[in-house]
C-alpha cells in the first residue's frame, strides 16, 4: 500500500509537469490545428538556461535565498523561451499557414533539430546537473514520502493552470484566442488581429514550456540537450489523451498519464513475473526454483506506456477524454 501511495505521489508530480507541457501543445493545436513538434525542445532550452543560471548563482556565493535563486533561473528561462516560441512561429509556421499539412510538420522537425544542436553547441554533450541549493525535506504521508520540491511542482502547476484558464476565459485576449480558434477568417473580420493572437498563443505556450523545463530540471536534478524529444512526445500523448485542443483535457491527460506511467513502472515487473502464476511456474520450474524471477517486462519499459496510451486513445477514442468530436480536416 505504501508503494502504491508513493507511486501515486510520484505520478502526480510527473503528471503535473506533463500537464504544463501538454498545455503548450494543446493551445497551439486549438488555435491553428498544428502539432508544434518543436515544443519539447523549447522545454529543453528552458531547463538548460534555468539550470545554468541557478548553477552560476549558487556557485557565486551571493547569499541569496535558495528560492530566489530558483526564481531567478525561471525568470531568465521564461523570456528566452518566449522569444524562441515567437521566432519559431514567425519563421517556420506563419509563412506556411495555407500550405498542405505536411509542410509545417516538416519545418517543425527541422526547427527541433536546429534547437537541439544549438543547445549542444552551447552546453556540450555533458548533462548539466542541478546544484542542491534548495533544502529538500521529505514529509511523510501515510507511509509514503513527498518532498518539498514535489509539493512545489504540484502547487506551481496548479497555479499555472488556474492562471491560464483565467487568461483564456476572463480576458479580452482570451476571447480573441477562442474566437480565432473557432473561425480564423470571421475572427479577422470582427477586428481581431489574428496573426498577433496566434503569435501570442505561441509565446504563452513557450512560457509554460519554460516553467515546465525548470520543474523537470529541479525534479530530476539534471538537464541534457536530448531531453526534449521524449518529454515532448509524452506530453503530446497526454494532450491527445485529454482531447487535443481542450485546455482542461490537457491538464487531466497530463496528470493521468503521469500516474499511469508511475504505476506501470512500479508494478509491471511484479505483474509480468511469470513465476507468480502457478500454471506457468510449473513450466518454468527450473527457473523459478532457484529463487530467480522470470520477469518479462521490467521498469525499463516505463517509456513505452505513454505511446501505448497514445495509440489506444487514437484507436478507440480519437477525440480524447474531454474532446469534442472533430471532423476530419485532412
Amino acid at each position, binding site marked *: 500500500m505504501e508503494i502504491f501511495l508513493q507511486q501515486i505521489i510520484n505520478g502526480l508530480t510527473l503528471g503535473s509537469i506533463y500537464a504544463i507541457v501538454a498545455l503548450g501543445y494543446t493551445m497551439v493545436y486549438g488555435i491553428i490545428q*498544428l*502539432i508544434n513538434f518543436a515544443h519539447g525542445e523549447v522545454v529543453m532550452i528552458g531547463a538548460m538556461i534555468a539550470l545554468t543560471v541557478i548553477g552560476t548563482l549558487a556557485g557565486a556565493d551571493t547569499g541569496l535565498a535558495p528560492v530566489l535563486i530558483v526564481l531567478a533561473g525561471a525568470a531568465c528561462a521564461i523570456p528566452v523561451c518566449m522569444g524562441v516560441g515567437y521566432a519559431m512561429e514567425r*519563421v*517556420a509556421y506563419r*509563412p*506556411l499557414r*495555407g*500550405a*498542405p*499539412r*505536411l*509542410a*509545417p*510538420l*516538416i*519545418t517543425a*522537425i*527541422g*526547427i*527541433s*533539430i*536546429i534547437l*537541439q*544542436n*544549438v543547445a*549542444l*553547441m552551447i552546453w556540450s554533450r555533458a548533462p548539466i546537473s542541478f546544484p542542491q541549493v534548495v533544502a529538500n525535506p521529505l514529509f511523510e504521508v501515510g507511509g509514503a514520502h513527498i518532498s518539498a520540491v514535489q509539493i512545489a511542482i504540484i502547487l506551481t502547476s496548479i497555479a499555472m493552470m488556474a492562471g491560464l484558464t483565467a487568461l483564456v476565459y476572463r480576458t479580452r485576449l482570451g476571447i480573441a484566442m477562442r474566437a480565432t480558434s473557432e473561425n480564423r477568417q470571421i475572427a479577422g473580420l470582427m477586428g481581431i488581429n489574428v496573426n498577433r493572437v496566434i503569435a501570442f498563443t505561441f509565446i504563452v505556450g513557450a512560457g509554460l514550456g519554460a516553467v515546465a523545463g525548470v520543474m523537470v530540471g529541479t525534479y530530476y536534478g539534471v538537464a541534457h540537450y536530448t531531453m526534449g*524529444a*521524449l518529454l515532448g*512526445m509524452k506530453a*503530446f*500523448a497526454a494532450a*491527445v489523451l485529454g482531447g487535443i485542443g481542450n485546455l482542461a483535457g490537457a491538464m487531466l491527460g497530463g496528470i493521468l498519464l503521469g500516474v499511469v506511467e508511475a504505476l506501470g513502472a512500479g508494478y509491471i515487473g511484479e505483474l509480468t513475473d511469470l513465476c507468480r502464476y502457478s500454471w506457468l511456474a510449473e513450466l518454468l520450474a527450473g*527457473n523459478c526454483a532457484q529463487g530467480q*524471477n*522470470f*520477469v*518479462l*517486462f*521490467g521498469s*525499463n*519499459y516505463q*517509456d*513505452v506506456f*505513454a*505511446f*501505448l496510451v*497514445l*495509440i489506444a486513445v*487514437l*484507436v478507440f477514442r*480519437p477525440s480524447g477524454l474531454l474532446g469534442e468530436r472533430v471532423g*476530419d*480536416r*485532412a
Partner: protein
Amino acid sequence: MIDALARMRRHPAAFWVGVMLVAVALLALPFVLASVGTAWVRITNLAILFILLSLGLNIVVGFAGLLDLGYIAFYAVGAYTYALLASPHFGLHLPFWVILPIGAAVACVFGVLLGAPTLKLRGDYLAIVTLGFGEIVRIFLNNLSQPVNLTNGPQGVTLIDPFTVGNFSFARSETLLGLTFSGPVKYYYLLMLVLLAVIVMNLRLEDSRIGRAWIAIREDEVAAQAMGINTRNIKLLAFAMGASFGGIAGGMFSAMQGFISPESFVLVESIMVLSMVVLGGMGNIGGVIVGALLLSFVPEVLRYTVEPVQRAVFGRMLIEPEVIRMLLFGLALVLMMLYRPAGIWPSKTRKREFAEQD
C-alpha cells in the same frame, strides 16, 4: 522520371548510348573510389543503402502521403532478423537468400501491425504514432535481453555472417583478371544490382493501378474512396511495401557491417531518411535518389573539411562536424519547406499541388 525516359526513348540510339555510359561509369566507380581510399567505397555502399531506404519510405510518404517518422524501425527489424538468423548468437547460419525474404516478410508484418490501428488517423497524428512506434521498437531491442536473451540488449549482435554463395564470400578480397575485388567492392556490385531491381520495381509501381491509387489517396482521400478505391487496404499495402524495402535494406546493412546494436536505429536516422525524401522531392523516384545521395555524401565531405578549415581559421575546433551536419539538416528542412516545398526535383503532381495552395 518516366517522362524523361519516354522522351529519351524517341531517340533509341541516344538512349542506349546514355545507358551504356552510365553503366560503365557505375561499374568503374568502385575502383576509382578504392584508389582514393577503401573508406569511400564503404561510404558509397552506405549511401546506396540509404537510397534503398529512401525509396522504401518514398512509397509511404511520397506516393501515399502518409507521414511515417518511425521508418527506421523496419530497417531495424530487417537488420535484427538477419543478425539473429546468421550469427553465433543463436548458432544459426542460414544463407542470405533465405533470410532476406524472411526479413522482408517480418518487416512487412510489422508494417501492417503499425498500419492497421493507425490508418484511420489524420496525417499529423499518424506522424506522432509512427514516431512512438519507432521508439517502442528501439526500447524493446534494447531490453529484450531479459529474461530470455533475444537481442543481446544494448551490446548488440556481433560476428554476423557476411553474404556467401557457396565458397564465394563477400567479405574476402579476390583477384580476378588482375583486378583486386575487395569486400566492399563486391558489396557495391551486389547493392547496385538490388538498387537497380528496386528502382525498376518502384518505376513500375508508380504507374501501376496500385501506384495511381496511392497518389489518388494522397491527393484526396475522400475522392479516392468515391472512385472505388479501398483506401484502407491500399494504405496498408503502402505501409507493408515500404516496410519490406526497409527490411531488405536492414538485412544487407547487417551483413555488411557484421555488427548491429540498437544505437544504429535511433530517431535521428528516421528523420535523416525522411529528409532525403523531402529534400529530393517527395513522390519522384529520381528526386529521392538525388536527395539520398546529397545527404549521404555532404556529411562525409563535411567530416573531412570542417575540422581542418576550423583549425586553420580559428586555430582550434569550435564546432563539431556532427553538429554542423545536423544544423544543416534542420536548416535544409525548414528552408526547403519555405522556398521549394516540392523538393529539388519534384514530381509533377506534387509541384502542382504545392503551387495551388498559394
